[in-house]
């Protein structure tokens, strides 16, 4: 096992543990910024991937596609099991909406890691080497977050607009 692979795995696990912890606890949610994380991850992923020198084969596309499907599926599920609540006291950024996905969300993360490792091993045997690069991991996570953001974006409780106009006797 090369140092590179160990580093990749550690980075991936650290990120997933962090995200898994966030799933299980109530987190403040800024509806206008839910797309930020996937966007940053995707940009970094693409940059890293562009520096990776690996011969891409159709097998890579197959495995990447399958992984993308699974990660999107998990992301959509996470989005739909997300629960929202509004708290009376806004935090210092003025956010009042909190969200959490509960332990099911954390379990989904573990499933995603399992699938990821399984596909890595299988793909490695079949000659799909692009899968194991850090850039791909980040892209897969970005896809997952983007799918979740897409669902949350539609479900998020938005306070009804305040009735405008003066009250007159």
């Amino acid at each position, binding site marked *: 096992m090369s140092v590179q692979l160990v580093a990749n795995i550690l980075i991936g696990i650290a990120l997933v543990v962090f995200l898994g912890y966030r799933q299980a606890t109530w987190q403040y949610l800024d509806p206008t910024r839910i797309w930020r994380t996937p966007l940053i991850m995707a940009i970094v992923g693409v940059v890293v991937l562009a520096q990776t020198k690996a011969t*891409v*084969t*159709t*097998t890579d*596309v*197959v495995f990447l*596609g*399958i992984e*993308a*499907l699974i990660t*999107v*599926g998990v992301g*959509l599920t996470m989005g739909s099991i997300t629960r929202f609540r509004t708290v009376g006291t806004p935090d210092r950024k003025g956010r009042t909406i909190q969200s959490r996905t509960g332990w099911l969300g954390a379990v989904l993360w573990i499933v995603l890691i399992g699938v990821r490792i399984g596909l890595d091993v299988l793909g490695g045997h079949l000659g799909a080497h692009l899968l194991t690069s850090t850039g791909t991991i980040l892209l897969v996570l970005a896809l997952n977050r983007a*799918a979740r953001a*897409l*669902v949350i974006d*539609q479900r998020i409780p938005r306070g009804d607009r305040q009735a405008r106009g003066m009250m*007159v*006797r």
Partner: protein
Amino acid sequence: MTLLTGRDEADLPGGRPRSSAAWGLNALGIAIVAFFFVRNGALLGLPVWVWVLGTVALAGWVLREFGRSPRLVTTAGVVMVAAGSVTVVPTDSLMVVPVIVGIVLIGANLRVPVWAASVTALAAIVVVAVTATVEHASLQFVLGTSGGMLLGVLIGFSRRQFRVAAERAREAEREQQRARLLADRSRAARDIHDVLAHSLGGLVLQLDAVEALLEAGRVEDATKRAGEARTLAADGLAEARRAVHALREDADSDTGPEPATSTTAADTTEPSRASRPTTDHEAGLTALVDAHRSFGGEVVTQGDETLADLDAAHRAAVVQVVREALSNARRHAPGRPVSLSVIRDGDAVDVVVANPLARGGHGLLGMRERFQELGSSATVEAERSDDEFVVAMHLPVDPVAAAGDRS
């Protein structure tokens, strides 16, 4: 380009009829793809399963041509993508066309979630990549067809946005119609209130007086009062008729341009934004003050009662508000002196009606609305102030009158 066949106005929720051009383009696309499918298939000697699945994909497209319900269209899209994607590699990418059309169909359908088209395209890419790996097709082939499918996702998404926008526009229009209806209704209510409250309120006072005079045995005075009451009732009736007439006319004239304000305004040339119940506004406040006095009210006036400095619309609004204020004063503070002052202040005229304490009624709301409708800098305030109820109006001077002053 057969790609363009996907861009029609079809599949609006509710099964609107598709335009014949879109139908024709789709039919042309089906014919072209079917022709090359058969010709190339015969040349390449395709296996039976490719023939079958290719035919199924094309059948899905045909189904979509004749399908109306959103569910049928979605099903057709799924069939086209599923059967088409398997045959993309064997048919040398010809079958990517029904796949792309299918993805567009799913993406544009408002009944399915927004991510459905992306996921479908992703699945189709996986299928194409698998068949490409099995048949040893090049990576470029896979990437090229994948690019086509992603394009389908984009086209579907933009069509979806277009439909959402159209839906929203319809919704907004409905909302606007409703708001207009409500505004009309509240204006009618206000006009009716103004007319009826004024004349009926006055009538009650007169009849009270008649009763009191009869009890005191002053039959002659009572007869005189009764005569005045009759006149008032007749006036009120005439005014109510005029108001109803104006409201009726309004339905026809509201669509036309606003009539120009004219100093010789009769009822018909009254600006439509101004209030409907129109008594003799030319006389300004004189008639109102006289009427108030005849009801036994006491009013101290100051300034120009004829309101010569104002244009017809503003004068009418002032008359309505003062009538309301006097009517309120009679109702809530009978027998107490009312002060009415008209003060010219540079480019503006201030009209103030003050009377000892009264409560506000619906009329106050109507006063404000009436002034808002004028759309000028005119304002009206009605509030308690030091044991008095004060209605103060501030209005711009009619430019014509102002010019006359300077010359």
